[in-house]
């Protein structure tokens, strides 16, 4: 299953300014680990030592939240994932 992952522009510093990725995956978790293989900087940013998504981030599948059990949510060919950082600044 080929899915697209878009990351916020502010993450560009961790990915040599690449903001969109194509990965092969059947779940959100697989997609994020494939993303981590393409970009070690993003892996370090997004995933903890156990390989889980850090709690400061949310994932949306085709604009719908993947929460809860984000990592095991299935994805299908052509899906678009957005990684969103929880922000609180004012």
């Amino acid at each position, binding site marked *: 299953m080929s899915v697209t992952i878009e990351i*916020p522009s*502010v993450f560009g510093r961790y990915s040599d300014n690449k903001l969109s990725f194509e990965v092969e995956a059947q779940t959100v978790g697989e997609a994020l680990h494939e993303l981590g293989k393409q970009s070690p900087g993003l892996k370090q940013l997004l995933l903890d030592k156990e390989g889980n998504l850090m709690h*400061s981030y949310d994932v949306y599948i085709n604009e719908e939240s993947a929460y809860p059990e984000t990592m095991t949510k299935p994805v299908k060919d052509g899906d678009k994932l*957005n990684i969103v*950082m929880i922000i*609180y*600044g*004012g």
Partner: protein
Amino acid sequence: MLTEKEKEKYDRQMMIYGFGEEGQEKLKKAKVFIAGAGGLGSPVSIYLAAAGIGTLRIADHDKVELSNLNRQILHYEENLGGRKIDSAAAKLHKLNPDIKIETIADTITEANASRLVGDSDLIVDAMDNLPTRYILNQTAIAKGIPFFHGAVYAFEGRAMTVIPGKTACLNCLYHNVEVPKVKFPVIGVTPAVIGCIQATEVIKYLTGLGELLTNRILNYDALRMKFTEFIIKPDPDCEHCGKPPARRTK
């Protein structure tokens, strides 16, 4: 009733289809609680004051620092060291002397939030930390009044409107997540955009115009110059707005 001066001052917005004198009177009668007089609170309060909201009740416990001035456009160098609420009230009074400005210098806490919000018609979330945002979200739900969320980071921002009992709330979005408060990067144009969206939502709500930014969060990525919407569904198990466990039917 609008005065002749007010009719002239607000003429251009009353010309908007569906707005009219009736819409302006709704703004005049409204009391809006604005939590924060910083990066978001500045554009929110400036545009709500200019639009003729009858009472702005602004809460902020901070003093003006030099590093605030790249984005907190209610405050000038002459205000350094002074209370933000005093600086804000002085500017807003000059902008629109026909509205009432109430100021609160207290820190918003779980214990005092309900009293500070008082009989305001709605809450604008212009805070700089997640715990206080959660407190205000719960206060809005308890009072049954709308909550207008906005947040920024660097060149990115987002906004969402909450109508208690009808739409997803801030905790449906962030599901009790706590992140440590750290100094965050931001440039003034980002809260300017998000604050204006929040103010727009407030005006739409009060006048009954348009479609509110509910059950979706609007994400603004300025470096791409792109707005994206994400769907946020009300969470029946939400600790803020969901049904208490004993009352859940399943």
